[in-house]
């Protein structure tokens, strides 16, 4: 009987294996936020005037806003004057070859499993590696360029492709969108830019790896993906940070534009430091991600595996503007110890015959709070819109919370909207069945949780599915005894 009480009880620490700090000479600007800081960041990046103007407009707008308070989260007040808004490993910006990259940086990314030497890399994947505020190296750039694909750091894109950036930056997520979007637009430092030309199927996975290293810094990156007519790209984002007692802020923007029949698959494996077992430290992950299916029969698919961060606030969304366009959202969100997550999606149906699918799997353990928040909106002109939403919650233990906040705003009566929701616990019978076959309780929980999340895990690119499965099990390590 004792054993069974222990089975669903929160106990020890999570083993976060990316918690190391790289000792590298880093250029930081003084902490705090002001118009001057915005100007300094822009100057550091040698930006053109129009970019500085964009930042300043965003900054001035941000000053008029209050932080959002509607999420099911306890966000402590953030002192923006205590945050460093720009930190860059001292090295040549945009190194031409790997010889110019600090070996310490290469070693860091090696340790994270992201080798930057192209010949060593996982076949079929190009990486943009971002540390703190700058991109360290983008691999396979030249090979991709042969097909007309642009894959570069955001800073370089501002210089090399100003027309594309001017045209699309802020076109999906305006700086006026929300508090954190305004903040990001003012102080964003780097990120990735992707352009897939008409009719091109991107031959490799594109990936950006975000790493926070310097203490007391915030990371504010922007990613912009533009997929022209009849193109396809699969993009993956990963992230980690050192273990620290202070909270660190990460406020990103991701924008996706899909033209006629373009197909964009965006996957995230989010593993920011979640804080320790008592809820000390960890990353605040406040992210605005949105894609627009602009073209006819275009498709945007979001897949996310969220295991890290002390607090997560993100809603990767799709605006289905083109007729016959498709939006998908597949999510696994794990919270353990004192983590909090409020995550979900918005599917905005505007075009005719648009379809969306939402599959959300929340897993809560320890003292954590895990919320799904979703909106399905069908506008008056969106004839024959279809949505299917499935929101499942799995509880491990009785100290955690799972919440579902589905909203629907339907203005066209031809819409067909389905919503299913379940809440379950891992049953002691299931765990015992595994035990009887020799499988330890911890491993059993890993198996059962991965089984529960399988529908979403199957959507991940192959190279990452195995990693993500392990991550899921590790994140819950110690959540059962």
């Amino acid at each position, binding site marked *: 009987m004792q054993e069974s009480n222990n089975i669903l009880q929160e106990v020890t620490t999570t083993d976060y294996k990316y918690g190391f700090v790289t000792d590298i000479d880093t250029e930081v600007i003084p902490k705090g936020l002001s118009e001057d800081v915005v100007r300094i960041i822009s100057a550091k990046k040698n930006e053109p005037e129009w970019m500085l103007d964009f930042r300043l407009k965003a900054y001035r707008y941000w000053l008029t806003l209050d932080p959002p308070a509607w999420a099911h989260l306890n966000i402590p007040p953030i002192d923006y004057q205590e945050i460093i808004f720009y930190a860059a490993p001292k090295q040549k910006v945009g190194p031409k070859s790997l010889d110019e990259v600090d070996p310490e940086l290469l070693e860091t990314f090696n340790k994270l499993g992201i080798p930057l030497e192209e010949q060593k890399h996982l076949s079929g994947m190009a990486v943009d590696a971002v540390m703190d505020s700058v991109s360290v190296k983008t691999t396979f750039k030249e090979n991709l360029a042969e097909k007309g694909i642009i894959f570069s750091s955001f800073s370089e894109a501002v210089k090399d492709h100003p027309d594309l950036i001017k045209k699309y930056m802020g076109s999906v997520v305006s700086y006026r969108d929300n508090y954190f979007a305004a903040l990001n637009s003012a102080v964003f430092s780097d990120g990735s830019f992707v352009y897939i030309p008409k009719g091109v199927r991107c031959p490799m996975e594109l990936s950006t790896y975000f790493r926070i290293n310097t203490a007391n810094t915030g990371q504010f990156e922007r990613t912009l993906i533009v997929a022209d007519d009849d193109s396809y790209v699969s993009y993956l984002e990963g992230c980690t940070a050192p273990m620290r007692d202070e909270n660190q802020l990460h406020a990103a923007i991701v924008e996706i534009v899909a033209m006629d029949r373009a197909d964009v698959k965006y996957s995230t494996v989010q593993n920011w430091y979640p804080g320790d077992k008592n809820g000390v430290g960890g990353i605040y992950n406040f992210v605005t991600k949105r894609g627009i299916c602009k073209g006819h029969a275009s498709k945007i698919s979001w897949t996310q595996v969220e295991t890290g961060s002390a607090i997560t606030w993100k809603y990767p969304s799709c605006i289905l503007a083109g007729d016959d366009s498709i939006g998908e959202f597949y999510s696994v969100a794990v919270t353990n110890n004192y983590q909090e997550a409020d995550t979900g999606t918005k599917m905005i149906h505007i075009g005719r015959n648009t379809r969306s699918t939402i599959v959300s799997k929340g897993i809560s353990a320890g003292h954590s709070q895990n919320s799904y928040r979703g909106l399905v909106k069908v506008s008056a002109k969106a004839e024959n819109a279809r949505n299917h939403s499935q929101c499942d919650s799995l509880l491990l233990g009785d100290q955690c919370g799972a919440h579902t906040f589905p909203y629907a705003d339907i203005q066209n009566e031809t819409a067909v909207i389905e919503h299913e929701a379940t809440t379950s616990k891992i049953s*002691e019978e299931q765990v015992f*069945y595994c*035990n009887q*076959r020799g499988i330890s309780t911890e491993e059993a929980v890993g*198996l059962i949780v991965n089984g529960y999340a399988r529908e979403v895990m199957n959507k991940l690119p192959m190279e990452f599915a195995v990693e993500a499965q392990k991550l899921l099990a590790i994140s819950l390590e110690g959540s059962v005894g």
Partner: protein
Amino acid sequence: MLEIKNLHANINGKEILKGINLTVNAGEVHAIMGPNGSGKSTLSSVLVGNPAFEVTEGEVIFNGKPILGMSPEDRSCEGLFLSFQYPVEIPGVSMVNFMRAALNANRKYKKLDPVSASDFLKLMRQKRAIVELDNKLASRSVNEGFSGGEKKRNEIFQMAMLEPKLAILDETDSGLDIDALRVVANGVNTLRTPENAAIVITHYQRLLDYIKPDVVHVLYKGRIVKTGGPELALELEEKGYDWIKKEIDGE
């Protein structure tokens, strides 16, 4: 191989087993019969360490080791297997992943390296043939959507994979039609060796037509009240349990 001495066990404070004594030797098949509620399933649960039950007295020695203090997974790795009466469904977990986790856990316990993917698949193919399970099994989730017969065959398949020293079959015949019963019984007989043993828990003689027991016990009100050869099962089939109940309750 197995020695149970004066075993007492409770569930929710109610005493179900009231002093079980039983010895099973290598190569033997023991049948445990008895009316509903006599404690048959409790006995199997307690032997494999189901945490829902509390042992209050007694001792169980398996292969020379006292096992009541062992975790259920260690007991499994020591070679104790239970074919569940009601196998639980585990959605999304494929039989391949489940079985590989189980086999590798057993190997790790014995300080052996994990089995390679190709060897494992070969082994699965071999063993599922014993219970005539088709190859779709591998990709299906553990017991999910299995018919009653498939679930029981799947239990015997797992037994074949893990090659336990002592298998406890808890009412493996319940809910089986005659064909499925024959498949399951053939499986069990195929796996019999002079080195292993089995305890077959059943209500009916029917299963014992296929799996021939060496010893038959009657469990009643938490105690073994009668022990005999295969002929005891036949007698029970003919006369029911009333005469035993009278014998015991009349004392």
